């Protein structure tokens, strides 16, 4: 398919403005660019067809089952999209909030923020929540910065380390490091949960915080999470909860009750806001009592008869310039209000049911990474048996594309060789799960028979496997004029 730049024709126009109805004005030439930017010269129809065709080269949840482990690719309700098209929100300028003269005109937006933060706090078992972080990783950064502020304030100058399990998502160590902490890794036990003895060995007075997710990235609930929290708290280390896996326990077990002091939510996972080809997400940060004074601000507060803004006493400041990805929060708010308390409880129940069903069906052919254990909202299998026949997890993934399914996550978590991590979510039907399992099982059979076809997959898509080495070598990252 051509690039839009290759479709450009000199002099062709898309959008045209009205003639200027005020006098022309000129800036000094020295301040001006020499040549107009070489943007494509295309018609509106060129643009519409081009991007319609590009879209047709994508799998999305709207078109395909998308069991991408750790990403919670659930159905993105059209209600939420409709609600966010409301111009009374969509056209609202965020900096108006900097002057209280304008607050009377922002009450609806303030209320959305206030209520969403209250509701998320209840869901997480937290004291308060800030919508400022833009994505999950940004929530982690906010969290680690809160931990740093807490210790700085308490004079805990020696606390320079964050403990992270080896199964953690890459953003956890990265966020801690970006915040300014040393990162120390804690190994997992053979059963896939945190090795508490190893944890104890790493825990010391320098530890400022511990980042966990529960269930962990092996899809397993950490049964000793409270013990770990107690151990951490004993050395005044704070517990961070990576909310990426909240879909497994929402309405069942709250991070706050597990002993966590700070957490983030992934609105684009648990709360069904769209993933948008890689974002926008939204990663609100929630805190227990200890960290409330440090929250990012300004915060929406209830005044006498209206909403207004206030800076928390010891705020770490602004994680983002305004109120985070407000329009994403608005979608999540619509999602939550539709489901309500009971509906949200069912989310985890059916997410876990679906994952266990798939595990039960697939474990005959693919080796479960952690024996006979049941999983939570996702299951980790390995293609280790298949690899012996020369068929790797990657081959299975590619072959699934040809069968009309998005592939599961492969090669993550890094702790499991040839891992295949399947997260069906609660919005998929049994017949979809069955069709996918059938495909997986038939691929396992093909692998066993030593079929070479799996190495050729995918064959039904616009391109086959692409040469990544060449890409990195040539580094052609822009089409130049």
């Amino acid at each position, binding site marked *: 398919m051509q690039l839009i730049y290759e479709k450009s024709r000199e002099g062709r126009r898309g959008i045209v403005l009205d003639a200027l109805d005020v006098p022309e004005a000129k800036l000094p030439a020295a301040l001006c660019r020499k040549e107009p*930017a070489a943007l494509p010269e295309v018609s509106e129809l060129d643009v519409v067809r081009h991007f319609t065709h590009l879209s047709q080269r*994508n799998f999305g949840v709207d078109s395909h089952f998308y069991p991408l482990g750790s990403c919670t690719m659930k159905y993105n309700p059209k209600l939420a999209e409709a609600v966010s098209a409301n111009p009374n929100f969509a056209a609202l300028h965020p900096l108006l909030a900097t002057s209280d003269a304008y607050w009377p005109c922002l009450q609806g937006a303030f209320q959305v923020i206030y209520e969403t933060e209250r509701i998320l706090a209840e869901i997480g078992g937290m004291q308060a929540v800030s919508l400022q972080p833009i994505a999950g990783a940004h929530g982690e950064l906010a969290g680690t910065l809160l931990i740093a502020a807490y210790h700085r304030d308490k004079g805990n100058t020696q606390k320079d380390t964050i403990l992270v399990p080896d199964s953690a998502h*890459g953003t956890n160590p990265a966020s801690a490091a970006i915040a300014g902490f040393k990162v120390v890794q804690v190994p997992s036990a053979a059963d896939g949960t945190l090795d508490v003895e190893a944890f104890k060995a790493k825990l010391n007075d320098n530890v400022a915080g511990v980042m966990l997710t529960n269930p962990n990235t092996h899809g397993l609930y950490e049964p000793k999470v409270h013990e770990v929290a107690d151990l951490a708290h004993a050395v005044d280390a704070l517990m961070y909860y990576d909310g990426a896996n909240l879909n497994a326990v929402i309405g069942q077990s709250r991070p706050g*009750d597990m002993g966590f002091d700070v957490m983030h939510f992934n609105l684009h996972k648990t709360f069904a806001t769209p993933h*948008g080809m890689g974002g926008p997400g939204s990663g609100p940060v929630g805190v227990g009592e200890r960290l409330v004074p440090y929250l990012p601000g300004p915060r929406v507060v209830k005044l006498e008869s209206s909403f207004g803004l206030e800076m928390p006493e010891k705020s770490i400041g602004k994680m983002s310039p305004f109120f985070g990805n407000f329009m994403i929060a608005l979608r999540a708010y619509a999602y939550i209000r539709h489901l309500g308390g009971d509906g949200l409880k069912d989310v985890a129940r059916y997410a876990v049911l679906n994952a266990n*069903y798939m595990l039960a069906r697939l474990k005959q052919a693919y080796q479960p990474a952690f024996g006979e254990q049941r999983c939570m909202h996702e299951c980790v299998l390995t293609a280790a048996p298949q690899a012996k026949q020369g068929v790797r997890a990657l081959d299975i993934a590619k072959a699934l594309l040809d069968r009309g399914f998005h592939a599961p996550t492969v090669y993550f978590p890094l702790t499991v060789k040839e891992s295949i991590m399947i997260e069906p979510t609660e919005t998929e039907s049994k017949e979809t799960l069955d069709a996918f399992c059938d495909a997986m099982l038939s691929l396992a059979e093909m692998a066993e028979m030593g079929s070479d076809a799996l190495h050729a997959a995918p064959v039904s898509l616009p391109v086959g496997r692409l040469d990544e080495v060449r890409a990195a070598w040539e580094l052609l990252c*822009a089409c130049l*004029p």
Partner: protein
Amino acid sequence: MTWIPTTNEERDEMLAAIGVASIDELFDVIPPDLRLKSWDLPEGLSEMAVKRLVAEMGNRNCGSLVSYAGGGVYDHFIPAAVDALTSRGEFYTAYTPYQPECAQGTLQSIYEYQSAIVRLTGMDFANASLYEGGTAVFEAAAMAVRLTNRQRVVIHESLNPVYRQVVETHTAHLGLDIASGDDPTGAACVIVQNPSFLGTVRDFTALAERCHAAGALLVLSFYPTSLGLLKTPGEMGVDIAVAEGQCLGIPLGFGGPYLGILATRKEHIRKMPGRLAAETADAQGRRGFVLTLQAREQHIRREKAMSNICSNEALMALRSLIYLCLMGKDGFLEVARHCHAKAEYLKSKLDFGTVLNDGPTFNEFALRLPRNAEEVAKRVMDQGYFAGLPLAPLGAGEETDLLIAVTEKRTREDLDGFAQALREAACN
């Protein structure tokens, strides 16, 4: 209320296949003392009721006011085709292109977006997107620190004060020396903005030279729309150019989602944060696109990664790409020309105030009024206008100062009406 499709019969079949009697049994691993302690949430509402609820809340914002607020994000026109195309499910319900073969739509659009930013800025490389304009400044500063191994970051007064706060929050625990001014000596970088927060247009070419002579980098925060006319970061010799991309077809949306733009020179590419798409081919020689240089990123390098960013703003990058294609070479220039001319026209009508900028402005300027700016703002609000941003609460001016931005959406008639309303509110 639910989006769960599973019928009770199917549930029972699935439980049987798993070998448990109930869904509850699947949660037996959770110790009883960690079970739900409180769950004080509202009851579910139908789609119809939620729509109505949100519409009612929306009515409590003043959606119909005409806005002269800017300060980094602006009320620009968004062509209808932007929404029509980005609302296609295959775009917005997809995720990170982990499987490039079924994500060529995503990957080609990232590549085309990167190309557009490179063409716009005159830089060598652009990444696939960052969160938004403020954190993009932080990422640039962190990148400069990595590249220079220096611990001093100098922030020029031209930078948006809100962005400076964001940088300060993010660097609080890094032990960096965050200084003010434009002296590059010993600095990792000097961070400037063009046009400045108050709207003044400058040429930072000389500063770039001074920076390079001192072994520092120049980071520039730019306003994409202004690049229709203004000298590019590339032309100025900037090392890292960052921007808030909201002006490129993204709704104001009370603060987000927006688009963080970052572009840099070839020699800095391996320290760049964020994703990067590149052209390659399959075994049959068919052109395709993949993510590349992933060893910079958290999922591979973990605590040693260039940034912790994972989910970014891909859909917003797509919006900006579609916007830039629709406007095209000439249309994009026209928008800048109109913004500038209209702002100049309005300026000329506001002779009862004093323009505070010490140089030419693009589409935004600071005005000193004969009266408290917030009072004036309140008054013209009743006339149907958001008058602009009072500068005192932003720590960027006196109580009488107002920051006024004009976009191509305002007609001469609008501007005349607004100038009149402002005059009355400020002078009577």
